[in-house]
């Protein structure tokens, strides 16, 4: 009898078992240890940090609440304002990204689109002309946009009879998802300039709008897979009974896709909660979010690990709690689409 031969069918050999469990526990250590270190550092005095590694509170050193006091009481509103900003921005942008994204995903999964290629080309031409007029000739951008749209509708009517290839749902879906490849830095600069012109830089509204757009492709992608996997029969019979498509969507399709909604919105929430680059561009003081506050701790006095640790902890805790609460839904729902390939 060898160490690596199983005694019973469907049971692991003792040697294999030891290897598997030790690898799993090793990785659990790799994951937990950095977090443990952050937690104990938040209770250390500066002297404990600079004196070299102290591993165990109460044994190696006497824990102190000074960093927590500093962040919560001395800094007070300087901590809470970015925190509140993050809560507002992440939650509102998640809600709207979910609403718009699942509407689009549902439409792409259930209804038929056949936009004419020529209309899209015309639309882009009209938009380009409007932008050109606004930039080169100093035409007011609102006027230019209105004229551009008017020209577009006129041309579409005029060229109604011209034959043109049509796109399908798949093309639109691909177009939306492919937006995810776009690195945020490419869009960040023009968005910055655009918001500056509109005087909404450093407001919640500006950041929320941007986050909704950035996260839409993920929502559309994941929710599309959910809607496709829901059987059509119920919706079809409701449609025959005369229910409108909008009612079918809100009253039947959305409730059926609940696990997908929960998992996707958690993912989007985490992404917006942790987002750094766009917030760096779009906010300076009023709308500053919590990742910026954490990043800004690298002060001239040198990194102050104890304060940073407190900030990192208060940033992680809400998302971790939320994930534990939604865990069942996630394991059922998350990335069902990716699993289907």
């Amino acid at each position, binding site marked *: 009898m060898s160490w690596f031969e199983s005694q019973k069918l469907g049971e692991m050999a003792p040697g294999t078992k030891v290897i598997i469990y030790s690898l799993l526990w090793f990785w659990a250590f790799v994951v937990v240890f950095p977090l443990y270190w952050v937690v104990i*550092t938040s209770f250390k005095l500066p002297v404990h940090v600079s004196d070299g590694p102290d591993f165990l509170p109460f044994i190696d050193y006497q824990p102190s609440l000074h960093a927590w006091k500093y962040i919560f009481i001395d800094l007070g509103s300087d901590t809470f304002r970015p925190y509140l900003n993050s809560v507002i921005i992440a939650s509102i942008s998640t809600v709207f990204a979910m609403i*718009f994204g699942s509407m689009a995903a549902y439409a792409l999964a259930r209804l038929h689109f056949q936009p004419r290629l020529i209309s899209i080309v015309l639309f882009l031409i009209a938009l380009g002309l409007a932008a050109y007029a606004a930039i080169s000739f100093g035409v007011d951008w609102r006027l230019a946009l209105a004229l551009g749209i008017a020209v577009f509708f006129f041309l579409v009517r005029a060229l109604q009879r011209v034959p043109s290839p049509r796109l399908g749902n798949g093309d639109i879906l691909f177009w939306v998802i492919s937006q995810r490849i776009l690195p945020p830095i490419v869009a960040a600069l*023009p968005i910055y300039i655009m918001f500056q012109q509109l005087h909404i830089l450093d407001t919640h509204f500006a950041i929320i709008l941007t986050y909704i757009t950035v996260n839409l492709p993920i929502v559309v992608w994941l929710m599309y897979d959910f809607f496709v996997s829901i059987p059509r029969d119920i919706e079809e019979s409701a449609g025959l009974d005369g229910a409108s*498509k909008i009612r079918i969507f809100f009253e039947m399709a959305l409730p059926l896709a609940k696990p997908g909604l929960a998992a996707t919105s958690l993912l989007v929430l985490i992404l917006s909660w942790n987002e*750094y680059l766009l917030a760096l561009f779009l906010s300076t003081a009023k709308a500053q979010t919590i990742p910026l506050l954490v990043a800004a701790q690298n002060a001239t006095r040198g990194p102050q690990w104890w304060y940073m640790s407190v*900030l*990192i902890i208060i940033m992680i805790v809400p998302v971790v709690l939320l994930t534990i609460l939604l865990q069942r839904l996630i394991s059922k729902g998350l990335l069902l689409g990716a699993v289907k390939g």
Partner: protein
Amino acid sequence: MASEKLDNWLDRHSARLFLLPTVLLILSFSLFPLVISAWLSLSRFKLVAGGYDISYIGWLNYKKLFTGSQQFHFLGTFAPISLVGWLIIALTAAILFWGIYTFLISRNITVIGVIGRLIAFPVLGWLGWLVASTTGEGGRLGSLSTTLYYVFAGVTLQFLMGTLLAWLCAQNIRGRAFFRLVFFVPLMVTPVGIAYMFRMLADMSVGPFSPIWKLFGLGEFSWAADPWSARMVVIIGDSWQWIPFIFIVMLAAFESQSRDEIEAAELDGASGWQIFKDITWPSVVPVAATVVLIRIIEAFKIVDLPNVLTNGGPGIATESLTLHSFIEWRALNLGGSSSVAYLLLVVSTIICVSYFQLVVLPMRRARE
């Protein structure tokens, strides 16, 4: 009556109405900026009294990056190709030849396919050559090669670890729910926080591992001053965050395959390795290909980790393209910043599309 008319109208146009917000948002915050960015990258931005002035200067910003004063920053400093460099070139050549070969025998040769490959393959070959010729002794990586290292070294490491962990977790073990939850946690930590966390952990004199470093006589060594060790710390931090993502998706893939087949193979006396190679792996390969694609797309955007962990240093050794572009923006060089950002877009699009065409699609077809 009016409301009934409205209802009818809404119902007739519901498809378009459902899609409208998404399309409008993407047009105005994704496509429109893309156009403006292209135009900015062809112009010079200057602050003048009472405002700013933007003037068209053609390809000058790009020229600067490829052959001019910013070449060292974007492409890097060239050096004779070392052994590692030749290995990278051999690998690139092998991938390209394989791509050409499979395309020629596919009997599915279209005009678009030919044009796409005529654009993508030379670029891929050039990128391989670039990484190889800046890696050698005396050479320095520019932000482009550094980003490619982050993407390829990082994603490879993350995929191998994530898949291994998922496979271990999919075995008949106790405490699976516990491991699943614990392994998932790093995904939720903000990258900025991870950067500081790893700075604390990697501190050679007062960090938790400093006794070990001292044991090896490395107490005085500063990883942040050496380009390769600094890059490695960035990749480790990035992997700590993203291995959970691969893990959770691959775990779902392993769990969704049927047990019957495996049990039948076990009855026939197949070894664990044989079962994995012949039954498990083929059934999860399409998922693996997709999850790697998602990771490649996201990996190109890396910025927070190098920015906070090393500030791009030593010198420019850990600067990713996004960070490079951001630094130019901070210096108010808007044209230079957009041209770097645009080149990032071009490179990441070509690599992602090539990967999709060469790996994801054939695997999906093979399964069907």
